[in-house]
């Protein structure tokens, strides 16, 4: 594919992406064509010296691809685009002019890790961000997922719920929605442990349900006893949990000690 053709396609992609609402389908076909073009010119995973302008174009294409993946709700594709972008962000970071999309996309990646409950990866990624720790609070794209994680860990679920509206970029909301499902389950398990019974009305505010029927289906899923006449949810009190003695583990460790002791004596 000639350099010229690539340029045209790129402009085409840019136009259809920036149009409101953007033409997702057309973007998709253009992206796959462009990716082939990038591979042919060796820009998809660049190595060594390259023309700076070419690299910027390649980075733009991949960034659009990443955002496009979120809009089409294709998380694995986002993952691929993001790992391809890593080369541009880290290895060529000193050569290229900074991209305005870099931090939104990094933030999106963080939220993605959070929703998939990959907390260890979340922290590793956070640690390897090229900005100093005190600047995180000033960077709204990064501070958003960081705060979400903190609130989730300490249990301030209402803050997470309220932050839903304050997403710095439209795309964040896609992940926040799926985050809500996780949160509801978290809250529900907390309630089961913490309350004996709960009025229906309060339960729906605690679980952020706007109407009762949603709550009732949810309660059914979790197996709660709902008393409609008293409008009360009772949580089955679990009897004293039988503490299981980990026999196998104890035996194997005792044997290991015996073996070691025999070596010593």
């Amino acid at each position, binding site marked *: 594919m000639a350099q010229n053709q690539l340029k045209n396609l790129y402009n085409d992609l840019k136009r259809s992406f920036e149009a409101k609402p953007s033409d997702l389908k057309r973007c998709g076909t253009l992206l796959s064509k462009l990716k082939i073009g990038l591979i042919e010119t060796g820009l998809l995973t660049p190595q060594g010296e390259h023309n700076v302008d070419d690299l910027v174009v390649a980075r733009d294409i991949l960034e659009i691809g990443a955002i496009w993946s979120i809009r089409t709700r294709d998380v694995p594709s986002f993952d691929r685009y993001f790992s391809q972008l890593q080369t541009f962000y880290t290895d060529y970071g000193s050569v290229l002019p900074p991209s305005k999309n870099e931090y939104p996309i990094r933030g999106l990646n963080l939220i993605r890790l959070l929703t998939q409950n990959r*907390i*260890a990866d979340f*922290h*590793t*990624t*956070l*640690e*390897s*961000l090229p900005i*100093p*720790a*005190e600047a995180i609070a000033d960077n709204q794209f990064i501070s958003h997922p960081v705060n979400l994680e*903190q609130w989730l*860990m*300490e*249990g*301030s*679920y*209402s*803050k997470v719920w309220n932050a839903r509206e304050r997403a710095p970029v439209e795309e964040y909301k896609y992940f926040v929605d799926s985050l809500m499902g996780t949160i509801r389950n*978290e*809250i529900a*398990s*907390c*309630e*089961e*442990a*913490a*309350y*004996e019974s*709960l*009025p229906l009305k*309060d339960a729906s505010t*605690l679980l952020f349900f706007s109407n009762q029927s949603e709550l009732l289906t949810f309660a059914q899923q979790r197996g709660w006893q709902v008393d409609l006449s008293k409008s009360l949810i009772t949580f089955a009190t679990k009897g004293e949990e039988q*503490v299981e*003695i*980990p026999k196998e*583990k*104890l035996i194997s*460790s005792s044997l290991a*000690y015996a073996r*070691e002791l025999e*070596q*010593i004596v």
Partner: protein
Amino acid sequence: MKSTEKDEKKDEKKEETTQEEVKKEPPTPLAEIKGNFVLIDRAVSTLEPRFTHRVLRTLTTLVKKIDEGIIRNAIEEAYPKDSATKATLLSWIPLSASGDVEMQVDSAKPASITTEPVPEIDIYLRLLVIHQLLKSKENVPKAKELSVETVQKMQALNRRSLDSIAAKVWYALERAFEINGDLAEARPLFLAAQRTAALRHDDDTQASLINRLLRSYLAYSLYDQADKLVSKTTFPVSAGNPQYARYHYYLGRIKAVQLNYSDAHTNLQQAIRRAPPATVAPGFYQAVHKLFVVVELLMGDIPDRGIFRHPVLEKPLKGYFEIVKAVRTGSLSQFQQTVSKHAALFQADKTHTLITRLRQNVIKTGIRRLSLAYSLISLKDICVKLHLDSEEDAEYIVGKAIRDGVIDGRLIHEDGWMACGGAGGVKRGYGSEVAEIFSRRIGYCLELHNQSVKAMRYPLNAHRKELADAEGAREREKELAKEIQEGDLDDEDLGGEF
């Protein structure tokens, strides 16, 4: 066989005597270097790496004592008069006027060596030169150049007797690159060398290089790559304690970032155990302890107070001590204050993100304290006491604490209360948790024992003596048997003895 044995024994004795002499009066650095030449020479000829190790052990103290003149003299004496290697080596040393001339007069007479020394000595001298160059800032680029050249030379030579010196050269190379501020550039070099070292089973170099790589990854916060490196390589078992200590420290760092605190704890414990004494290497000791304290807090434990009284640790760990106090009392505001007060310190130590993770631990301890003190407390009071933002949050947080088993209690939503299980209701048994901690401690002790056994050195050829004894005994037995057989019928003889 016997003659060599004797020779070796003689050697040992000679060594002992020379060592004793050394103890009597500290030799001049020049004499020390010369002594080291002899040791290296012997190491090469007897294929015994022990002697080289002994030479390298004194490296750090030696480097502090030497200057350009001493190295120059050492080089002059090590090589024959018109040696090409000598000329190149000398060209690396910056000229200095101090006492150069008169010392040369001193050593002019005995310099009558005619053969080229072994390459190990050459590399050792280069190592000394690099360290000397690293002492002053303007010479660092030169040191970098020399170290790269030395590494190439080492790889071309490919001698097994060079391995332990090579490991030190890699360290010097890293230092040169790091001081110069382009540690990332050295990474491909390390990676290639690590591959070769692994293929050649060059354990010393491999251990050193893995640590170099980890250090360079962690310096740029590339935890992902560091983790992959660790999972793809096996750290050589025969590596020395200092390398092991470093390796465990880096591992602990990676594990802590990945939220794997218990593993991080074990690794850091090992690092502390293997680290040189606090007075010798205070920097490392402090760095490990800083991380250790944070990891212990993250695990929900409170570090031993004795750590903060240690003379080497007391001052640098002051900020951490305040954090510990805040976590222990469960006061969120105090915690927040301390974090912002010492933010610069934590940033420099790269523990800031780890410490911000402590927030939830602070809250948990706070709730726990409240649950122990009150049997019934309103959510609003919890809010005020723990400095939480809203009652709503307090309800969720307490709920989570109950679910996670931090406290034993119930929430009464209608009245906005938290009721805590009465005195009898608290169940605290010796469950599997205790067993787990117990087994972890036993594991630590057993490993300590096994490693001490492995680290013991046995006198050379001791088993031969035993063998000889055994052989002698067997011979005597044979003789006895023969005698018995011969004098089989001579019952009187035997009987007479009794």
